[in-house]
């Protein structure tokens, strides 16, 4: 075969053969060797985990300060990675406070955890939060990977009723906010995550060549964009906002079609990881399965930014297998009962152990001269401190990872009263290469080492 130059239309007659289309140039996997020098340096990742209902701080806060600190009971499970673990004591999430809005600390702290803003109290008609730190990163760096960001969790949104004292369920169920009004829903089904990441396909889909499918998808998306633009002209303000969301979503999916060449492991590159069968019944298995997939997503550089909601804020599930059959939220209102506080600590430890499982997974993957963990910044914690008092200062927060060597070793930091949690986010934004000197209610840049 030689001197081949042929129109796209002619080529498409060849259904069943692998052909490239102009907008899908370079479908072949890019390997590190052909990447630019800047790209060959291991990329930095930012991941955010939230756990609900605060923590029993007496068992969380380490003793001692600086690099020689002693891990406390709850976080003991992170001991194997101690040099990567920075415990940050004394941070505050002011946006989660009532500020005259009354109850609803769970909804507020969920909504505020990554935005640092004070969400508007509403059951729905005028949801108002602000963009979350992960999305600021995604909007700046997202084009480098197939997924600008991943939003994961173990449960969907609440199913019925008021979520928390007159707050819409959008607040306690979403960490990632694309802008003030659009939360980014999370995926909680492991098999669906797998399919998104690595394109699980059924037989019918495989019958068509990938490029033809992509071409048809593109034509469908172009078509509906036009539909939406037509419709936009006929609608009122609130409706337009919804259509804007629609348009953004369509364009985002279109961009992803174009970026589908960035899967570095190739189509069959995950040989030893079976597609999960669905949502496991056992909580622990479910959690681990989702964490495995997040680790795979990082490993395959499918994304560099992710949020993981271990539970929705205010969650009230029981954990009978660790001796806490009562609901988590109920027990968190311990009324200083030492029995209940012990139970809270048990749940905290149980969650932390799962987080440690994820940290282990990253530590096992080599990257450059170290492991993935060297090139990560992972925030883990809650926007509530004591679940009984609902206070939002002295938060339980850890930062794991060495941020590409920018943190030498883990330490226990005690920050001045009222130091905003957002100061940490400003520091992280800067490490990610985002030009920012403030975020949310930040007052400066947090000193982390």
């Amino acid at each position: 075969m030689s001197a081949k130059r042929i129109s796209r239309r002619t080529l498409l007659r060849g259904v069943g053969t692998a052909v490239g289309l102009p907008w899908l140039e370079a479908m072949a996997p890019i390997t590190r060797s052909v990447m630019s020098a800047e790209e060959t340096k291991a990329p930095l990742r930012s991941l955010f985990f939230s756990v609900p209902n605060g923590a029993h701080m007496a068992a969380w806060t380490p003793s001692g300060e600086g690099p020689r600190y002693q891990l406390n009971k709850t976080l003991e499970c992170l001991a194997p990675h101690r040099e990567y673990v920075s415990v940050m004591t004394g941070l505050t999430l002011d946006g989660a406070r009532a500020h005259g809005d009354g109850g609803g600390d769970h909804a507020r702290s969920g909504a505020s955890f990554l935005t640092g803003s004070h969400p508007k109290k509403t059951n729905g008609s005028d949801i108002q939060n602000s963009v979350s730190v992960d999305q600021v990163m995604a909007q700046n760096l997202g084009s480098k990977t197939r997924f600008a960001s991943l939003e994961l969790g173990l449960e969907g949104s609440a199913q019925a009723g008021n979520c928390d004292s007159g707050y819409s369920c959008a607040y306690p169920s979403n960490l990632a906010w694309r802008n003030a009004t659009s939360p980014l829903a999370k995926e909680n089904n492991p098999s669906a995550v797998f399919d998104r990441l690595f394109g699980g396909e059924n037989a019918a889909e495989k019958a068509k060549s990938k490029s033809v499918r992509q071409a048809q998808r593109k034509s469908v998306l172009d078509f509906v964009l036009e539909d939406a633009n037509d419709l936009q002209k006929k609608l009122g303000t609130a409706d337009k906002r919804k259509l804007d969301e629609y348009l953004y979503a369509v364009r985002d999916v279109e961009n992803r079609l174009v970026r589908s060449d960035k899967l570095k492991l190739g189509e069959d590159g995950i040989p030893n990881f079976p597609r999960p069968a669905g949502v496991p019944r056992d909580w622990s298995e479910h959690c681990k399965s989702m964490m495995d997939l997040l680790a795979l997503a990082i490993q395959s550089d499918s994304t560099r930014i992710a949020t993981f909601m271990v539970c929705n804020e205010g969650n009230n599930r029981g954990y009978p297998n660790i001796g806490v059959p009562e609901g988590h939220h109920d027990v968190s209102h311990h009324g200083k009962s030492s029995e209940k506080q012990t139970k809270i600590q048990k749940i905290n430890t149980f969650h932390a152990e799962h987080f440690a499982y994820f940290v282990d997974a990253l530590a096992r993957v080599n990257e450059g001269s170290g492991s993935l963990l060297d090139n990560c910044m992972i925030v883990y914690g809650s926007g509530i401190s004591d679940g009984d008092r609902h206070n939002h200062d002295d938060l339980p927060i850890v930062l794991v990872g060495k941020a590409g060597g920018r943190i030498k070793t883990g330490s226990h930091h005690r920050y001045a009263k009222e130091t905003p949690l957002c100061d940490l986010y400003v520091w992280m934004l800067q490490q990610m290469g985002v030009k920012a000197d403030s975020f949310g209610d930040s007052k400066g840049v947090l000193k982390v080492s």
Partner: protein
Amino acid sequence: MKEIDTTQMMKTWIFIPIYLFLAAPLWAVDWDKRNAEFTTGVIPILKAACIECHSGSEADGGLSLTHFKSAKMVMKERATWEKIAVRLAIKDMPPADAEPLDDSKRKQLIDWINLAINDVECGKTPNPGSITIRRLNKFEYRNTIRDLFGIDYEPAMDFPGDDVGYGFDNIGDVLTLPPLLMEKYLKAAEDITRKAIIAPEPGPMFENFYKLEQLKPKSGGAAKASEITLWSNADIKWDETIPWSGTYYLNMLLGGSRVGNVGPRVLISVDGKKVREIDVKATPETRDDYQVMMKLKAGKRNISVAFTNDDSVEGKVEGKKGQPKEDRNLHIYSVGISGQKPSEAVPLSSLPESHTRIITAVPNVTQGPQDALKKVLTAVARKIYRRPISTTEVERFVALSKNAMDDGESYEGAVQVAIQAMLVSPNFLFKVETPEAKTPEGYPLVNEFELASRLSYFLWSTAPDDQLLSLAWRRQLREPGVLAGQVKRMIDDRRANAFVENFAGQWLTLRKLDMFEPNEAMFPTWNEEVRDLARRETYTFFAGVMRNNLSVLRLLDADFTYLNEKLAKFYGIPGVEGDQFRKVSLVGQNRRGILTQASVLAVTSNPTRTSPVKRGKWILDNLLNTPPPPAPPGVPELDKAELNGTLRERIEQHRADPACASCHKLMDPLGLALENYDAVGRWRTRDAGEEIDASGEMPTGEKIKSAGDLIRIMREKNSEKFVRCLTEKMMTFALGRGLEYYDRCAVDQIFSKTKVDDFRFVTMVTEIVLSNPFQRKGVRDDLESLE
């Protein structure tokens, strides 16, 4: 009760606001007068009695009153003031440990608040409100796909983004569309169309491009790797083994030099027989693709490409010695042959019903693909968009399909592509409404198609069926009696089960039952099967009241329920055999209505014990629509570090704190009355060895001894409150938006029309459907313009 004097009424428990709803004035609000009253009459009382605790960011109960500067601001936050009026009326504010408020001032305050917040103009054209465009939620999507294609698309249950607002998951303002969901919609559209329509599998492909240097012309030209040049009448020919008989394409990239503006003529022959002649218009600079269709028989074929009109014009060309002035030559830059085996037709017998229903036309001798597509796509688009389709829209669908066909897609495959676009279009995914602007006569009606969709998504959680759509086509949906008849038909239809599950399931918070995992050791008879049966009991019971058009009050106090053997055993009710649910009399049993059903009792419990507080709050939230204020931030710590004694004793100790007492005295007696039902709803007389004491005193003084008394009081004294609560919840679900102050006009009307028919279920639904907010589109008026 014989004579009702107003002070007595004040004491009547939590139902005072009933009279708030009566006879809203028909005149416009006199804001100046109202403001003056507020400044001179109300603010001084507030300052004296309330502001001390209720001010600033650390205000008690999270309620700060300092920012209310005018009557309009009171109107704007009317829900808050409604609660204030209630709390004042039952005299739990100011609290017992505060400075007392004398009765005349209390009355003055309550009267003014009620007057101010009920000052809604219900005249000729009350604002029917505006529904923000609603995306189909996952249940609606799944049902709609089922009704359109006969396919149960189960993966829809994993669709994200259906957040809850105002207690329901169908609220336009709250339903978002994250990119993750768009991805899933796209995938779903592909999966669904492939299941609904069977496109023939594409046949194998044959393709061969030739190395040019191997196609040397015998004479009159030359061949190299990059091109073949023919400079006199000459040809290239070669043999090809054709794998199957059928249509093939000769694909060539050509250019030619010209004489007198005429380019080369090229003759293509197979086995010495002429196939076609083409004129090459492209020059060597503009080289272009040329494609010739050939019908070829399988086997060895000899193919030739000949240049037939060589010519040249002699003359001198500056700088080019010895070359003719004009010389016609043919340049061949690539040549190849391709073909695809025709796909095998799918046997009719293996086509799904949806395929034959959708593909009502195929291209044939009498109609080209365009005409067939037009017919098929118009019909299907009407169903998918739930409205008529404009010519422009049809043309766009046809063009989309036609493009796919031009790119090699089969006819059926091309129809799939157009339907995929429909299923991802906002016209399908959203309940689109585009009514006219307001006229002097009032707010516009939504058109009949939009009305049909409002109806069907309200009562069926799915698209309107043929009957509704054809009524809309004939503009008969609003003819007298038609809507009422349709409501009745729809309620009797099986699809109304979706209303039971989606409305009652959320209203009664039963969807949360899945998350309730009681301690197995303590409640061994409860398991997932019992849980599902218990929920089914409540759904069946609700459906029974609905389909038999009973009074909605029966939900509170019915002396029957629906059980099967397993569930009856769980309850300890004898005489029910078999798996089938059937109506069971509760005469002689300790149970009446939803409050005593296991589903409700369990969903309001903790995993290890009952929660009288949660049960009480549940009743206030869901049956009386008077949610207690949230616990204040930083719940005051109790003096005693730990409470002790029985559950009731602990609750009473808790209530001893005046900061807690004001709300807990509303909730606790309601929940304690249900203490004879354990955390999974079984009847009991003892708890942890202690005799159960279900007695209590209602905040307004009635003494009750049992759940039976509670239900009786609910029925006798709270029926109107309950009916209004249900009406408001149902309207929220029907409209897909939170209710606003101006909706009170409609609620009043629905209430009074339902009342004259003994609060019958179907009447309530019908009146909601006939109400202005359901029929019209108004404006989104949240008093933004008021300061």
